[in-house]
């Protein structure tokens, strides 16, 4: 492109109110720039003070509220969860220990129990736990066996026992005949609540 063509194209008539100038030289590039459509982002502006305040507020709210508060809240929640988990762990292990103790005790009682024989003798049921005024009247040998059975029965405890011999006075020793001594007893027993 020659300089004369460029000069002719760059000559424009400018009408601007009262000031009217003809054949004003305007740069081609600037002319194109001025005539192009302006975008809002490039034409509008924000006052520095407002922009600064908005930015500061945005940073403060963003970091302070959106992050700081979130971190604080989540941290608190996490700490609370950790504490609850620790408490849960304590109670869980304590419960397991107690369960083991109870189960061991119950198993020991059940495994060594011959309560059916006692139930059969007295005609009682383990469904009821306390039995009062049970009467026994047996020869001494039989009585001792029964008493041994009750004493060694882990599921039964004797709360009260009143035993009387049928003898009011001791028999003489060195006699060929074995004395027949009958023992009478009244007893209260309790059956363990583990069955």
């Amino acid at each position, binding site marked *: 492109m020659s300089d004369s063509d460029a000069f002719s194209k760059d000559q424009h008539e400018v009408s*601007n109110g009262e*000031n009217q*100038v003809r054949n*004003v030289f305007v740069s081609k590039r600037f002319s194109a720039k001025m005539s192009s459509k302006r975008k809002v*982002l*490039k*034409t*509008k*502006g*924000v006052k520095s003070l407002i*922009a600064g305040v*908005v*930015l500061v507020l*945005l*940073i403060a709210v*963003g*970091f302070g509220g*959106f*992050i700081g508060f*979130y*971190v604080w809240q*989540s*941290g608190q*929640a*996490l700490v*609370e*969860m950790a504490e*609850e*988990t620790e*408490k*849960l*762990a304590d*109670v*869980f292990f304590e*419960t397991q220990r*107690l369960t083991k*103790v*109870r189960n061991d*005790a*119950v198993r020991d009682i059940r495994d060594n129990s011959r309560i059916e024989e006692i139930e059969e003798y007295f005609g009682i049921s383990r469904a009821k736990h306390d039995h009062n005024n049970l009467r026994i009247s047996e020869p001494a040998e039989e009585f001792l066996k029964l*008493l041994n059975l009750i*004493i060694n029965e882990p599921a039964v*405890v*004797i*709360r*009260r*026992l*009143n*035993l*009387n*011999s049928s*003898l009011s006075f*001791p028999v*003489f*020793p060195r006699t060929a005949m074995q004395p027949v*001594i009958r023992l009478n007893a009244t007893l209260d027993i*309790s059956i*363990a*609540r*583990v069955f």
Partner: protein
Amino acid sequence: MVSVNLYTRKKRRNKLEIFLLLVILVVTVVLAVRMMANAAFSTRHLQLVRARSYIFEHTGLALTGVIERDTEVIQEKHNQLVQERRRLTSQISEIRAFLQQKEEAHRFFEITCLYLEKHGELALKEIMTRIDYSQGNGNVLYYLVLDSSLESEKVLAVIPETEAYVKLQETKLSFFAESLEVRHIDMGIDKNVGQ
């Protein structure tokens, strides 16, 4: 000359662009930091859950991954376990009280048997006439038919490890044959005396 305020227009245009860029930058940074914080808390939460996975599995807890919700679930399970622990403690106390009674009764009859056996070794005959037992305490009355040539002091001193709460009262009944001697033993067992 055309009056064009290029400086002002340029300044305003740049301000809006920069302002918007800064706003976008701040929002992006805030969101990024928030995501990082979220990821950090999620990781910590996961670590906590993994560390206590044994408890969560055994208690049947289904965690959601949301800290607040998981904390509530853990609290509910904790309360359940506290009630379970209370129930177990009550059961164990009951079993313990039962075994305590059993032990007291067993000890009473054990001491009775021990004294009867030891005295029986010296006596020609031993005859038990009465037992009154209640809640760990009681009295046992029995007769010993002895050879009169036996030294009388040996009868009560035959048991070296005399229990602190066993009290023996001895009455001599020597109106039988000359070669025999009858003693009436009143043995009192009081568990509260030795404590």
